[in-house]
């Protein structure tokens, strides 16, 4: 009867137990620290509410998040569109693949100075940096997903006159969606890294900028709070991502579970 509730509590315990252990370990290990660069966790947590006021959230966190979303979304649109085209046509793939492999191998932070030359030092530059890093996993996974559409499903669609955009929407993209989501998930963590890096160059606000400012001003506990905020932001975004994925890929997880059972 209380099985459901018990299950939820147990899962909650699993989720919070390791973070609790780590925080406690950090707390105890740093408690009597006198090292300037390694302040006690107590000091960091005391500084937290003073540093991350509503004003700071609006002035620094919000712009960062908006830039991340803008870059991530444009990478998703471009990656999906190009990936679908490249994945659908063998010839296009043969032409594009070597170039893609080369471009993918270039570490995106290297592009920051280059993009600055073209896009200046404003938001456009930062969004371009984020997008240029996020686009590769989305693009390459979409290509793989689209080309792996099952032959029997393809023939079924053809024999029932499901062609063109209906085929794209109902068959190809749906069939590729597990792969596409794998790409989107990778891109999200790359996006967060690039968000911070792009703000460390020539920025006047944002999370990365603030953390660097604190570090340069020897406000070490404040710097640590910034790192905590980054971690929390990444965690929150991945929770949102998981919720969306569970909705869109519910069928896929069910299918996998049912084929494991048989």
């Amino acid at each position: 009867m209380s099985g459901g509730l018990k299950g939820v509590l147990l899962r909650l315990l699993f989720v919070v137990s390791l973070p609790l252990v780590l925080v406690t370990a950090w707390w105890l290990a740093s408690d009597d620290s006198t090292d300037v660069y390694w302040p006690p966790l107590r000091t960091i947590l005391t500084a937290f509410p003073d540093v991350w006021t509503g004003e700071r959230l609006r002035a620094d966190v919000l712009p960062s998040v908006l830039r991340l979303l803008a870059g991530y979304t444009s990478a998703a649109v471009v990656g999906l569109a190009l990936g679908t085209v490249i994945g659908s046509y063998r010839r296009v793939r043969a032409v594009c693949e070597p170039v893609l492999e080369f471009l993918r191998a270039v570490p995106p932070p290297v592009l920051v100075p280059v993009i600055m030359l073209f896009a200046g030092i404003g938001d456009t530059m930062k969004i371009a940096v984020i997008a240029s890093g996020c686009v590769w996993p989305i693009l390459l996974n979409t290509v793989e997903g689209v080309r792996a559409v099952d032959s029997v499903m393809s023939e079924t669609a053809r024999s029932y006159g499901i062609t063109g955009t209906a085929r794209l929407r109902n068959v190809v993209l749906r069939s590729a969606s597990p792969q596409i989501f794998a790409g989107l998930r990778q891109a999200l963590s790359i996006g967060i890294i690039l968000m911070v890096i792009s703000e460390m160059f020539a920025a006047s606000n944002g999370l990365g900028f603030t953390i660097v400012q604190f570090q340069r001003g020897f406000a070490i506990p404040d710097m640590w709070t910034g790192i905590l905020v980054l971690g929390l932001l990444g965690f929150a975004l991945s929770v949102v991502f998981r919720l969306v994925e569970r909705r869109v890929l519910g069928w896929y997880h069910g299918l996998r579970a049912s084929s494991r059972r048989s």
Partner: protein
Amino acid sequence: MHALLEVSGLRKVYEGSGRRVEAVRDLTFTVDAGELVCLVGPSGCGKTTLLKCVAGLLNPTAGEVLLGGRPVSGPPPGMAVVFQEYGRSLFPWMRVRDNVELPLKQKKLSRSRRRELVDDALTSVGLSDAAGAYPWQLSGGMQQRVAIARALAYEPDVLLMDEPFAAVDAQTRADLEDLVRGLWRERGITILFVTHDIDEAVYLGERVLILSASPTVVQEQLKVDLPVERDQLHTRVAPRFAELRTHVYEQIQAAKRGVPLSKD
């Protein structure tokens, strides 16, 4: 009157990487409206190739397929195919109802008409309760029923079935055979049923086309003079059934011996 489906001089040669495989040599047969015809042949005899050519999914090397007097050059709107691999033919991201409805949306039918057809088809195959389930939540036999329902709702002139029951267990198979027979009698649809199972061909068909080994030709056309009313218990032990299946079996053995064995 013209036959509904006419296949004449059909030939299919696969060419690729230096290998040239003649899968189908010369096939000519017709299917009349309202007929249930079974194609049976030794395994690897190009049955699937033949069916795909008929369905417009493959272009034949020579010869032609006419549906209602019109040449088939791509999948025609008047045909529905039930594949053997139900698990790969149903879309796992759609519920049963949506799977059945999707082809009807392509036909631009009204919402109410689609609803009517879907409900009717699912009821016919005994799955009206499963409309909201995902295909992978159903057993293999039920999934194949969904594929049959999808084909029925499409209201094809000809229903093509490619070894549809080869992947289900024997009891389910018997049920599905009776289902197909029943649907054929109730609805007067035209069915071309491909199988490698001799008993199944004789039990289901009004006419059995026996194919040779690859490269395929029609070895013999056999009228099945069993009563229209058939059931698993009595029909399969009837003396006439035994005679017919023996005959088909001998023909297929002869077909295997008669033609030099190809490598597939």
